[in-house]
């Protein structure tokens, strides 16, 4: 399009884009490069190549336990947020819904409440009930912040469905539930998959809420990483595990997005 940018403009925009991409990836590359550095201090010149930090990270029982805790909480959060997101999204497509505005505002509220406020609020709630910090409280906090994302992923997908085919199933004698399970559900599987993935990612990486609600000695993975990054003896291990997680999440995000695109394209063509 020549109206939007001339030759010089295109060259400048292209250079800026390239520079920004470099800026975005340099810290990630640095982290990966220094995960192989044979020194406890990350500085130049490079001390030498080693895979030692990966081995010590993967044999660090505390770190592995923390990852396991976060994986379990993340999986439960994916399940909980997707279930709540799905029911809410279906509920919001109802023709008549009492207090629709209030319900919509409430389910989107976690998007704007600062995590630090949500966390101290839950801490006060636990305290008022005579309870202590607990991993289930971390899970509840994570589900609360993940639910709006699930709804925002599932609701648009439900709205684009052709309701005539659901009506056809009902005309042929299917109950509302059967029509939902046999017609609607298979058509929104890609959205449910995205929702679960996003909810898992939010939970697995969530530090702010977890830092207030984890019980001592039962750190989740981000809480352990945070403490480790401030402990020089542990920092190389943290960088090693961080490099693994960053590379893995870049691969997963790209693959999932490619798969989702293909699946949705197939569904819209069918």
């Amino acid at each position, binding site marked *: 399009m020549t109206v939007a940018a001339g030759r010089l403009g295109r060259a400048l925009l292209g250079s800026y*884009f390239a520079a920004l991409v470099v800026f975005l990836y340099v810290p990630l590359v640095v982290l990966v490069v220094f995960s192989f550095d044979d020194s406890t201090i*990350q500085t130049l010149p490079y001390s030498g190549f080693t895979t030692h930090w990966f081995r010590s990270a993967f044999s660090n029982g505390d770190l592995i336990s923390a990852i396991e805790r976060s994986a379990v909480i993340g999986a439960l959060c994916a399940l909980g947020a997707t279930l*709540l997101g799905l029911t*809410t999204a279906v509920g*919001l497509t109802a023709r008549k819904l009492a207090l629709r505005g209030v319900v919509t505002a409430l389910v989107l509220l976690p998007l704007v409440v600062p995590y*630090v406020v949500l966390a101290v609020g839950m801490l*006060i709630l636990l305290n008022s009930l005579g309870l202590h910090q607990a991993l289930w409280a971390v899970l509840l906090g994570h589900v609360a912040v993940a639910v709006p994302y699930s*709804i925002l992923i599932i609701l648009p997908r439900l709205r684009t469905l052709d309701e005539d085919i659901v009506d056809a199933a009902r005309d042929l004698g299917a109950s509302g539930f059967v029509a939902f399970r046999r017609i609607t559900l298979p058509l929104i599987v890609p959205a449910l998959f995205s929702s679960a993935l996003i909810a898992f990612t939010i939970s697995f990486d969530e530090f702010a809420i977890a830092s207030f609600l984890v019980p001592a000695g039962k750190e989740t993975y981000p809480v352990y990483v945070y403490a480790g*990054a401030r402990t020089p003896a542990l920092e190389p291990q943290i960088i090693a595990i961080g490099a693994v*997680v960053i590379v893995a999440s870049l691969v997963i995000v790209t693959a999932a997005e490619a798969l989702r695109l293909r699946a949705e394209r197939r569904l819209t063509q069918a």
Partner: protein
Amino acid sequence: MTAADVSAPAAARRMQLRAGRGWLALPTTGFLVAVLIVPLVLIGLYSVDLMTNLVGVPTGFSVANWSEFLPPGDNVFFNRFETSILITLLVSVLAVLGAYPIAYFLAFVARRRRYTLLMLVLAPFFTSYLLRVIAWKVVLDNNGVVNSALWQLGLRHHGDGISWLIYSWFSVALVLFYSWVPFVALPIYVVLENLDTRLLEAAQDLGGGRLHVFRRITLPLSLPGVIAAFVFVLIPTTGEFIAPLLVGGPGSYMFGNSIQSFFSETPNWNYGAVLAVWLIAIVLVLLVLFGRFLSAGFKEARA
């Protein structure tokens, strides 16, 4: 599918079938009342001393903490709030300015590869926030990549690091900018992508130069996306405390750090609750001011 293209009886029957599913929103509503609304109310009660975590301390309505925090008066936490909100505004403006050319490039120059390039920009946003901050710590630290590279190149004396590179407002703002810039490109890109390009061609046919067309047509029409992007950074950053903990220092702690330290390092939750209520109030004000642009952004994104 609109109501107009189906026959009236079919539409009526369909409406009837769809009427009864509103109750499905109830579980989430109840859940969020329990884990979000009730805690917010409790924070409010704490802020006016109607409840407390201190055993044996009598409770009773009092605005003592509020009157100490709010001006007039020179309160260290209110001052921190002011500095913090200025940094937040600065980061939000810079992130939008930094993201606009990216969105413009993707929408008007990148053509066929635009989706791949958009994913290239967005992918880092979906990796761990904490790890990205730690990566910056490695880059900026006193012995870090930037400083040690300068020493190796002989541009600075060995051991003499640039003092403002880390544990400063510079590092906090840089990391926040870095984290938000990819995400912020998205709403601007969506608006530009949906722009009716015939308007631009018409303006050019009428003799407008490219800069003139941009200033008079493209920029004003993309403002909803720009403002949505601005608010997308502004609102979460008001409560930020992670980046200052890792790449900032006591001199560059944000308002979120004050709240965090009252609850995790002191027993004085009642005073911390005042700060938390204040933060929520500020967020609500921002939502009232900018909320309609956000919903416009959502609508654009859905279209």
